[in-house]
């Protein structure tokens, strides 16, 4: 799942799709933590708490990213990454 996310991040041309790939990566992390906690260290709940916080943080990240993408959309009327090349070497 994490690798799917990385693949999507690199290959996708649409910014919303890139954002979805990022969500995939973050969710992979969450599942990892929950699983390791459940099967390896069932005694305490550290991993579960980390998952909870990570979900909240991911939500904040997505909200901010979408706000910025909407701003770009207002200017350029599309959300493709090819449009983002005004600054070059």
């Amino acid at each position, binding site marked *: 799942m*994490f690798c799917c*996310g990385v693949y999507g*991040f690199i290959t996708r041309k649409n*910014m919303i799709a*890139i*954002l979805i790939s*990022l969500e995939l*990566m*973050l969710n*992979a*992390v969450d599942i*990892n*933590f929950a699983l*390791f*906690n459940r099967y*390896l*260290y069932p005694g305490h709940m*550290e*991993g579960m*708490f*980390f998952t909870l*916080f*990570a979900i909240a*943080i991911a939500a*904040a*990240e997505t909200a*901010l*990213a979408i706000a*910025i*993408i909407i*701003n*770009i959309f207002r*200017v*350029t009327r599309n959300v493709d990454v090819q449009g*983002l090349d*005004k*600054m070059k*070497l």
Partner: protein
Amino acid sequence: MDYSQFLAMKQEIGLLIVFLLVFLYDTFLPQRAGKGLPIVASLLMLVLTVAGFFTCFLGSPDVTAFAGMYATSPVMTAIKNILNIGVVIVLIQSIKWANGELMIMRRGEFYELLLVTLFGMYLMISARHFLLFIIGLESASLPLAAMVAFDKNRYESHEAAVKYILTAVFSSAVFMMGLSFVYALSGSLYFNTIGYAIIGQHSTMLCIAIAFVIAGMGFKLSLVPFHLWTADVYQGAPTSVTSYLSVISKGAAAFAFLVIMAQVFGAVYEHIWSWMLYVLIILTITIGNLFAIRQKNMKRFLAFSSISQAGYIMLGVIADNTMGTAAMMYYILVYICSNLAAFGVIGAIENATGRVSMEDYNGLYKTNPRLSVVMMLAMFSLAGIPPFAGFFSKFFIFTGALAVGTVAIYFLVGIALINTIVSLYYYLLVVKAMFISNEECVIPTFRSACSERLGLWITVAGIVFLGLVSPIYNWLLEITAPIASLFV
């Protein structure tokens, strides 16, 4: 619950009070009082810095709070104070920009976001548990994306912001993936518990985990394979935000990186991560320098110069000893002064004329001699020419690294030395443009705002005196001495 443990977080609470005062001022005072907000914010930060120094000199003991999640010690207090100084300078320099025509509605938000990111950096530095660390990391990087997008009327600002937020989220995902592997190996997220759990382990999983953690932090520090966002973001963001991003955010991340590597992974320094960092440092310094040579835009130029400076800062991590830590803190302090001087000049010129390309600086000495001298001092300090502070900071960080004493480290420091000479070339290009080149359309003589001049005077004082006043470095060395025991 024992509420007295909040007393351990003196600096954080002070910062929160500053934040609340700024917020209340912004919300409840009438519109025309808003003009005073930048000055009030700078003064409050100044008070916080001075108060921080008092706690520093009165001696703050090593305290841990919240079941060991949070820790503070003289070193932490000192690095937070160093960051505070930088923030004060950034705030002073941005007064004119913040009082500009376009900022009237949004002036308050800039200061609130900035203070929140600083709070996040405090948490990053003081965290002793990865949960707190991640929260600090995110609250230090997410509001920054909003700050990068602050110039609503400039398209480049949005473009920079989207690049910044996507790479920031990507890097924190990679970082957390690494953490999940670490958790699987050790069953804990406390720094010292993990540190003891991985002693003597050589598994592939640990290698992958450390590589992920280094990659995640590498994005924040813009080390070389992960540096691609830096130049665009620096160019697109408003100059005040760029200067904040390049010194404060980088300094905090560097110190937090040092704490993680030493406390969590210190036990496997030799056979797992020292060579990873060797490769990263060599790449960072060399490629940062080579790309800096061909830049035409001053902000992009400073972006690549700051990439290579990050490589030098990392030498303090690789040293993994008291001297390295002290040298790194000193380096961050000097770097704050010199880089803010350079950005201050760029910002002043941009505010007055709107020009940022290197050709615009041709013949600047004839029209604006004072600004050119400040810029020259900044460049000399960044390049490491004695007797300016930059020379001493480089010298200390090299000696700190050489104390490790292996063949690899001699090789590494040798390459870093050669790169210093390369960097001299492009730093002097700017000086040459200002003093020697002649140009038809020189930037006309202008008088920069009072606040900008004040900011520049502070940085110039820093550049000239930090190197010559040796007690500062001695003091840093003294307070870092006790933490030698923390390196497993």
